[in-house]
């Protein structure tokens, strides 16, 4: 087996036993990148020189220490909406195509502290707006399992890089499903932590009350290791939670006998792919066989989730993206004659269609005369959606749902009708609205060998339950061991 095929926890063992070096691991990953990147197109920016340098530093630390963090020397890919000082951070948008941040995001600082190795910045839907990575301002990333299909979005580059072994692990961001959905479509593990668990400082904002950074990894153990590093209170983020971070690996291996698992009846929707439906049902059966109790629950306001999301998220985005005006940084139209022209032309030319669509939508729902009917109303329904989960978690410990109604679709298939694209978020979106944690774990394949993911949800701050159930499921199945064959 090549080094690039292994998990972080495998590699950590090898590093501890001094059987390999971080340099060797990093070079192996870059060899893989050279072989398949031209087919998959995960990366906006590759950081090879910096990576090799960091690998050498990691090796020095490993040589001089017997105890070092499991992520030391491990190559990790970073979604291109997280600021790394001195490295291009574009959010896959033309309007930031030349933006080099002068500061590190908090999570980047934490990864630097444990001497992880940055492979590069991954492609995404522009400003995290999308579910397929087709909205990238530059190119589309392809699904390693079928190069004619999309990897999901908006963290498509990160998910594909892990699936294709072009990184050992990756960071993504999730606002309405942008970690979980691509994880599901690419057959990797992806988690959105409780809102406030991971600092948003340095994450380019899309929707402030919904965004969270989270891991995309080859298995549950790697996800727990990455969560251990990135979680924690940050005084630079006023929405950061000041709660202790447990060692998430401690629950891995605990049996799930007696745990109550709820399955919302609202998930039986029309339009869900037959293979997806069957995989979820099989997954539930598997969990039952491991001792969990399955019961039906209800989340009555599920049908409003997509509408509520597209009002709140676009409203916040319309304001968060106002700063991209060509004045101080980023793309500026050079021919503009006056300030208003500079603003409007720079933004018209720098932003892609979907971004513009959402900015206009968000501006509209906040405007005088419509604020009460749309934005205020959406905030109220958001509370109802959150209450649904609070009530449900009185009856169960973990909720299971599908992640996406379909497996990966073909490039271009949903681009004609934005609404079609929006509706594919139906299972993931209410999780962001409620602020609870959620994880996608591989649970099957379609008839044409496309990955299917199962979503596990828990109460706020209860990621441990999710990890406990996810690990038990993973160890009882083989899905996490399968890898795509990339021509």
């Amino acid at each position, binding site marked *: 087996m090549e080094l690039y095929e292994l998990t972080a926890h495998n590699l950590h063992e090898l590093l501890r036993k001094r059987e390999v070096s971080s340099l060797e691991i990093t070079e192996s990953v870059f060899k893989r990148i050279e072989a398949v990147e031209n087919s998959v197109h995960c990366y906006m920016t590759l950081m090879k020189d910096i990576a090799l340098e960091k690998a050498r530093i990691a090796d020095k630390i490993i040589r001089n220490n017997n105890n070092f963090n499991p992520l030391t020397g491990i190559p990790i890919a970073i979604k291109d909406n997280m600021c790394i000082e001195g490295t291009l951070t574009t959010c896959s948008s033309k309007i930031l195509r030349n933006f080099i941040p002068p500061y590190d995001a908090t999570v980047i600082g934490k990864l630097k502290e444990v001497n992880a190795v940055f492979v590069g910045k991954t492609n995404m839907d522009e400003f995290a707006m999308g579910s397929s990575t087709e909205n990238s301002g530059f190119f589309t990333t392809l699904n390693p399992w079928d190069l004619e299909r999309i990897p999901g979005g908006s963290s498509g580059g990160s998910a594909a890089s892990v699936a294709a072994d072009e990184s050992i692990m990756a960071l993504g961001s999730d606002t309405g499903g942008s970690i979980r959905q691509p994880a599901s479509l690419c057959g990797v593990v992806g988690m959105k932590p409780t809102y406030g668990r991971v600092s948003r400082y340095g994450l380019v904002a899309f929707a*402030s009350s919904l965004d969270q950074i989270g891991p995309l990894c080859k298995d549950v153990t790697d996800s727990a290791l990455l969560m251990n590093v990135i979680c924690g209170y940050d005084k630079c983020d*006023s929405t950061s939670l000041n709660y202790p971070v447990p060692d998430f690996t401690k629950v891995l291996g605990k049996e799930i006998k007696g745990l109550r698992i709820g399955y919302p009846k609202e998930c039986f929707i029309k339009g869900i792919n037959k293979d997806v439906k069957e995989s979820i049902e099989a997954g539930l059966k598997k969990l039952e066989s491991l001792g969990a109790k399955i019961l039906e629950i209800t989340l009555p306001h599920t049908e409003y989730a997509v509408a509520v999301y597209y009002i709140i998220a676009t409203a916040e985005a319309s304001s968060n993206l106002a700063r991209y*005006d060509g004045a101080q940084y980023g793309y500026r139209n050079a021919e503009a004659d006056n300030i208003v022209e500079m603003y409007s032309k720079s933004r018209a030319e720098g932003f892609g269609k979907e971004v513009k669509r959402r900015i206009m939508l968000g501006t509209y729902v906040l405007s005088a005369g419509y604020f009460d009917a749309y934005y205020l109303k959406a905030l109220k329904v958001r509370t109802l959606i959150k209450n649904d989960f609070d009530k449900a978690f009185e009856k169960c410990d973990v909720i299971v749902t599908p992640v996406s109604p379909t497996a990966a679709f073909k490039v271009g298939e949903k681009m004609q009708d934005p609404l079609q694209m929006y509706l594919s978020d139906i299972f993931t979106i209410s999780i962001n609205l409620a602020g609870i944690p959620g994880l996608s774990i591989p649970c099957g394949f379609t008839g044409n060998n496309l990955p299917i993911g199962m979503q596990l949800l828990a109460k706020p701050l209860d990621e441990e339950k999710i990890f406990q159930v996810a690990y038990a499921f993973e160890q009882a199945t083989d899905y996490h061991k399968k890898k795509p064959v990339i021509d």
Partner: protein
Amino acid sequence: MEFEPVIGLEVHSELSTDSKIFCGCSTKFGAEPNTQMCPVCMGLPGVLPVLNKKALEYSVRIALALNCQITEFTGFDRKNYYYPDLPKNYQISQQYNCLGRNGYVKINVNGVEKKIGINNVHLEEDAGKLLHPEIPGADYSLVDLNRTGVPLIEIVSEPDMRGLDEMMAYMVTLKNLLQYIEVSDCKMQEGSLRFEINVSIRPKGSKELGKKVEIKNLNSMKIAMKSAEYEINRQSKILAKGSEVEQETRLWDDEKFVTKAMRSKEESKDYRYFPEPDLVTIHITKEWQEEIRRNLPELQLAKKERFAQQYQIPEYDAEVITQNKANAVFYEQVVESCGNPKEASNWMMKEVFKYLDKEDVEDPNFILKPGQLANLIIEIDKHIVTRNMAKEIFDTMVETGKDPKEIIREQGLVQITDENQIREVARKIIQANPGPVKDYKGGKEKSLGFLVGQIMKETKGKANPELVNKILKDELAK
């Protein structure tokens, strides 16, 4: 038909915290452009605001001093608009849950007290500065972001003022109050205190409000008064003709002395206010409010009464000295050093205020140091110099910055209290002025003054006046 003006004010005051409202950058005035900024106040992608607790504390202080109801659960809202001095193209401000509401301030106009209502007090971030080059045809403007993020408190009054006097009294009262509670240095020339006025007029006796005009670009209280006066006249003329006043924003033109409609005829701006998702609700607990209230610096009224009582000075003097905090602080420092509050009060009211007026400054420290005045008073009390001599020494102190003792020594200004010396001079003057002496002996009191004057002239003003009087009378009686 008689019209009455209806005036409301919006006052912006920069809080005197060391750092900005949402980041740790310095708020110091006068730095080189773009040297006091960081990713947060520059609005770079990915940054987040963190509230400066001191700014919040100062704001609560202000709201309490203005008798407002404190909103126990307060929060911030985004005010969205595009402008190059606003890097995020939104301002973090308060709209829905302003931290202070329904307050009032008492003003005094010609002895009549009146309450001016305060609609709300809220906290927000300041914007940067734009510099437009004076070169004709220049196709650029410069942006200085040092000021973005400086904490700003906005005080919105009710339209309770009915004339220019009341408006002036309100501005002065508010400014003194802010300085008294030590939340702002209120330097209009540095932009740490800014006024915007809303003026409308209506038939006298009417209860309805007329169309209001907002006036901006007022750099001093004088200009605020001038523009209000101009605007009242302009609107009166319009109404007298039977036309309607247009509700708009106008700018004061300080060269033509008129208000002008703003060039761009924009529709009323829709700021699309919504709760700031990057900041959480703030709970201003009752305990914290009480603590802040207890620790409020002594306000003007209390200080005035204390001065009158503690220093035994007339109430009128106490009122004038405590008019502004800098004076009051200066006075107490002088008293502390010289121990003669009555004398100190006299010198404040006469000489110090004379100079403050002349130099058009507020703070006596610009004129001289409290130590200088205190030492002068000590020399008077020790009978080293007379009051008259002291007046001249005062002028020299102000001019040179020297300590009175030094001036006295340099100019040999010690008072003459040697009775023999005075007697000698008195005899000399009596001898040299037989006429006036005869007049005095004949009953003309005025001639005494003349003779005293001559003695003072002879002694270059240094002879102690009381002794001169006593000894002269004595000699004349012989």
